[in-house]
């Protein structure tokens, strides 16, 4: 069992985590779908796949930052719903769009602050945030409705120079995340903090003189802002505010990160792995829809996948 788990997630010689396997899984799922159903290879379905996967890719990439340092953010699902609700409040776009990101940064800051200063376990801290945000969202918008600013809709559904907008979103998100993770000291310090946590020496990075608390807070801010970005994208797709649109998104995002080879104990993982993990999840969802699997059973299957992936990880610290 440990041999299997090491091969799946083991990162000897690299801290990228095992991302080859999920890539193979993604290809296998795509192959299965194209053999199983005629609709999969249909041009319209393939064109739909990118915008379908985009919110999960964005959320998962944000979640990855927090998981890399040995944390977890359960509040991203509520953050997404909250963002759509705020965007559907009605008002000028130049107020609403900056507002959702400012609020997301605030939520992320409070998550990080509570975790680092009051030593609250990340799961508990962000679970509380999840409920707090959920309540506020339901006050703002008890049922789905309202309309979001036109610019949000056209930024998602439109196209530029003949290229559909979601492609630009994808490039933008990956560029930002790549710069943060691999092109900055912050990214290296994330790995350092996570490496200390997962090897059981919480202060290791701190002892090297890294501002660990500040970096942790920043990671939670990034995670929340990415979730808000996913919320803006979703709002553009559904053209309204919906208090339930982000429901269980945190679970999908964590599963995607874990499938992509990122260790939930921290310190090991990669951006490309996370993107592949999110694509696997999106392909599975697409395939289950095409093969008429009940949405209720889909939730069960996703939960089982998370359990399986995490059980195969050589976990150490968080007890996850």
């Amino acid at each position: 069992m440990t041999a299997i788990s090491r091969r799946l997630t083991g990162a000897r010689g690299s801290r990228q985590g095992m991302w080859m396997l999920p890539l193979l899984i993604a290809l296998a799922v795509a192959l299965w779908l194209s053999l199983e159903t005629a609709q999969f290879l249909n041009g319209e379905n393939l064109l739909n796949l990118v915008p379908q996967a985009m919110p999960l890719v964005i959320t998962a990439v944000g979640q990855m930052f927090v998981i890399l340092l040995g944390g977890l953010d359960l509040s991203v699902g509520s953050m997404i719903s909250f963002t759509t609700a705020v965007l559907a409040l009605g008002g000028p776009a130049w107020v609403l769009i900056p507002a959702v990101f400012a609020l997301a940064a605030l939520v992320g800051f409070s998550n990080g602050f509570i975790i680092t200063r009051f030593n609250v376990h990340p799961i508990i801290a962000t679970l509380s945030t999840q409920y707090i945000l959920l309540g506020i969202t339901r006050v703002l918008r008890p049922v789905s409705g309202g309309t979001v600013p036109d610019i949000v809709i056209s930024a998602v559904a439109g196209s530029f120079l003949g290229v559909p907008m979601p492609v630009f979103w994808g490039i933008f998100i990956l560029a930002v995340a790549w710069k943060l993770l691999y092109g900055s000291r912050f990214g290296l310090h994330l790995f350092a903090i996570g490496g200390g946590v997962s090897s059981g020496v919480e202060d290791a990075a701190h002892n090297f003189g890294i501002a660990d608390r500040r970096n942790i807070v920043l990671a939670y801010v990034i995670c929340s802002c990415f979730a808000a970005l996913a919320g803006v994208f979703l709002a553009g797709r559904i053209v309204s505010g919906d208090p339930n649109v982000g429901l269980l998104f945190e679970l999908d995002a964590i599963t995607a990160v874990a499938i992509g080879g990122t260790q939930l104990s921290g310190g090991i993982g990669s951006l490309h792995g996370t993107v592949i993990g999110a694509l696997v999840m999106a392909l599975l969802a697409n395939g289950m829809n095409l093969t008429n699997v009940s949405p209720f059973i889909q939730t069960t299957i996703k939960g089982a996948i998370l359990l399986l992936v995490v059980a195969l990880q050589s976990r150490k610290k968080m007890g996850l």
Partner: protein
Amino acid sequence: MVARAAETRARATEFPERSGACFVKTLVEMSDIRKAFAGTAALKGVSIALQSGSVHALMGENGAGKSTLMKILAGVHQPDSGAILLDGRQVAFHRPKDALEAGISTVFQELSLLPNLTIAENMFLGREPTTAFGGVDHRRMRREAGKALAELGLTLDPGTLVSMLSIAERQFVEIAHGIMTDASVFILDEPTAALNAADVEVLNRHIRRLKDEGKAVVYISHRMDEIFAICDTVTVLKDGELVGTRSLAEMTPAALIAMMVGRELADLFPQRGDAPGPAMLSVEDFRITERSKPFSLELRRGEIVALAGLEGQGQQRFMRSLVGQYHPFAGRVAIKGKSLPLPVSPGGGVRRLQAMGVGFVPEDRKEDGLFLGLSVAHNIAAALHSKRSELALAAGYQRQIADTMSSLAVKASGPGAAVGTLSGGNQQKVLLGRYLAADIDILLVEEPTRGVDIGAKSEIYRLLRDFAKKGGAVLVLSRETVELIGLCDRICVVHNDTIVKQMPAADATEHNILDAALGANGEASGAGGERR
């Protein structure tokens, strides 16, 4: 910087004492350092001066304060009082990074590199060079790290993850880190504990190089042969106090051991028991690891037997393999004639042993032994409860609890007081009381008096002796040799995962225990090949 260099020159001419080619000057002076942990004094006013171009051995028994002193110099701990002078200037280190920046590099027993970063990243962590675009300049990091590694004659790729390195290589990387930061003081805390003979040779070569370059090296080790092979000066600590500093040229191993011992047996201990009865616990052909030599041990009724030896020589692993916390390689264990299959399962080990009448008192009473937030009564009754079925109604056990508290003279406001509020000695009594209240007749005790004041120590010794006199048997593991001599009937000295010597405690002295524990008589000088 210039001023400092000038001052250094001035100091050097002021003290024109020559040793070989370079000037000897005092790089670091620690004076009257005091440090207490949770009320227990670890250092009671220790002073030490480190000279350039010299390897300074730091010796003393376990718990003498060597590591604490060096952790203070490395910025891990802060002293309660005393001064650290660096090049004659007083400094204060608040965290390890401060010490590193001041030129003090440390290789600790427990390594401090991050396993998921590369060698180069570890060496530059916290002060990475950046490129024009604000990214980390990996190329420069690798180049400079490679240079530092090459200086040590290492051919490691700086892009290798530290998790891929052997322990020896990690230590060399830490030394290279020190070289790259231009450290002037290198602290090596038992660097050879995990090295094989060939790596020790390489390490010694590196140490001599550092010495030739005029660095000051502090070398903590228990191995006599190494100390005499590479060190120039030795400072001996005992019980947190300075015994003395000598030049090794004028010392012999015997004289050094005498320095480390030299203390009178305190009048703390109860009278020893009569002739022991039949065997309660017998261990045969026990091998802790694959490579260790087999040994046998018998614990008899009415007897207190000690496991002595230097830290980490296997005595704790042996004790813990009896309760299932460690998987030994091989051996046969019988408790009161009933054989105990090895390995003992970690889940049910302690519980099963309790059913057989064996109690295990772990070293760390706060973490492993007691439920600090629960009452004295709950803590004492825990072992009583564990003998009953899980679903049985909990019995009150008021009488047993009251009896235990009064017979052990536990000082607490009452049975309801939380154990965490008691003093260390009383906590330890409660922990012992748990097993004395249950019908236990074999006690396995780790560190019976750690962090306990002298009065309580004496009471605990009396309790253990009474327990043995009433027909129990005790196996004790302790870092304090004096305690073992005074308390026990027989002493088994453990070295290199095996019992190298058994002696009646009445004839034992700290000197001959330390002698056997250091492996000074024959066997250990040849132990180089045996090292793991």
